[in-house]
């Protein structure tokens, strides 16, 4: 359990980090290292150089921006866990964060690191997909953006161009009086990697009908899935259990779930449907009980 040799750099800013990255094909960025270091310990990753961006102060922030909430890439998960803007404006993110690893890994792990690592079981990846977040990165001296639906490539890979540094993620803020969230995951032990996870956010209108809904499923497929067909089906209805169950099952009927020795493909499909149904039910109950969240 010792990493292969590498060299270590601590650049002063993002452009210097990008230059170091461009100069060495085997180089990897490191921030909290809570995903990368175990991979290196098991020699599943053997970077030739680690470029430590954890101390670039400009990359750590939470701020409201253009009607959304922008979060700097190296903002630590423990900071987000207690952040009042996140709690108020991106409640689904706030709900999911306590499920990420343990307190000791959240103390080091960053939001950008988790997204760039692209683990299909990562809670942050699921929330980004469910809420249709936008990824900001810097490459070749210029800033660029990717909608999250174009961000994840295959398993454990992103579509960031070579030499790019993920700099921020922006979550859209939902406005309305009755917004609620739900999150569920199943794993062998608390805070282990999820076999399946599900997240839902709903906005109810005055009559209690679903005005807007986002539902996503994580860990079931190569990257998190948004159940758009179910969202379409459920918008405008009262979110009664039968209808939610049917819509979620239909949306998951044709996915090709991952399978490993812990959970078969069929188990993952079944668990995904159950957890997504529960997440929507929780979100609905949460919305009914919640006071005005935004404005």
């Amino acid at each position, binding site marked *: 359990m010792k990493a292969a*040799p590498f060299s270590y750099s601590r650049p002063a800013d993002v452009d210097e980090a990008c230059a170091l990255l461009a100069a060495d094909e085997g180089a990897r960025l490191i921030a909290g*290292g809570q995903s990368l*270091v175990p991979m290196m310990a098991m020699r599943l990753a053997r970077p030739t150089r*680690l470029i430590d961006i954890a101390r670039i102060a400009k990359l750590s922030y939470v701020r409201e921006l253009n009607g959304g909430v922008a979060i700097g890439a190296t903002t630590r998960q423990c900071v987000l866990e207690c952040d009042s803007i996140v709690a108020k404006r991106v409640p689904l993110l706030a709900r999911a964060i306590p499920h990420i690893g343990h307190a000791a*890994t959240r103390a080091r792990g960053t939001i950008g690191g988790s997204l760039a690592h692209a683990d299909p079981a990562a809670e942050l990846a699921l929330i980004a997909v469910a809420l249709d977040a936008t990824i900001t990165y810097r490459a070749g001296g210029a800033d660029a953006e990717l909608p999250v639906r174009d961000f994840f490539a295959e398993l454990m890979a992103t579509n960031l161009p070579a030499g790019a540094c993920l700099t921020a993620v922006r979550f859209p803020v939902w406005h309305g009086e009755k917004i609620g969230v739900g999150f569920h995951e199943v794993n062998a032990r608390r*805070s282990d990697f999820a076999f399946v996870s599900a997240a839902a956010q709903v906005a109810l209108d005055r009559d209690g009908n679903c005005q807007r809904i986002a539902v996503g499923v994580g860990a079931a497929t190569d990257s998190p899935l948004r159940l758009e067909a179910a969202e379409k089906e459920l918008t405008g209805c009262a979110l009664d259990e039968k209808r939610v169950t049917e819509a979620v099952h239909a949306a998951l009927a044709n996915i090709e779930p991952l399978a490993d020795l812990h959970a078969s493909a069929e188990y993952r499909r079944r668990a995904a449907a159950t957890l997504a149904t529960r997440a929507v039910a929780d979100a609905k109950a949460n919305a009914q009980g919640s006071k005005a969240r935004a404005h």
Partner: protein
Amino acid sequence: MHIKLTVNGAAHELDIEERTTLLDALRDHLALKGAHAGCEHGVCGACTVLLDGVAVRACLMFAPQAEGSAITTVEGVTPGPGELSLIQDAFCETHGMQCGYCTPAMILVAHALLADNPEPTREDIVEAISGNICRCTGYAQIVEAISLAAERMRGVNRPAELTK
């Protein structure tokens, strides 16, 4: 690579390979064997140390990443040589250990928890130690130890009649 680490209040200069984990730097270069090497990939929690007062896994950091932070190991929580911290004492009293492998980490997690939350509920304590595996499964007494330590810390420097 030449690095500077501040451990238990003392400044150290080390020549290490970049790939040396903070855990190995503490154990092999500074002879601080209190942080234990268990799984060495972030699962067991036996290597827990405090980084600027916060519990982290020393096996999931390379030593150069820890430059500039204040590191506390279990050796650093005792008031003096041969003495025990109030939390360590509570672990002895409730027998909050069996083989002792997870104990330094459990004690540091308890230090971090109680510095933040002087009145933890049982759930708070369970949550705080949830990332630390005790293979002897002695969790009940560990929870009891932390609860007793919390109670005593709340009572420190208070007149006896106010301490309950």
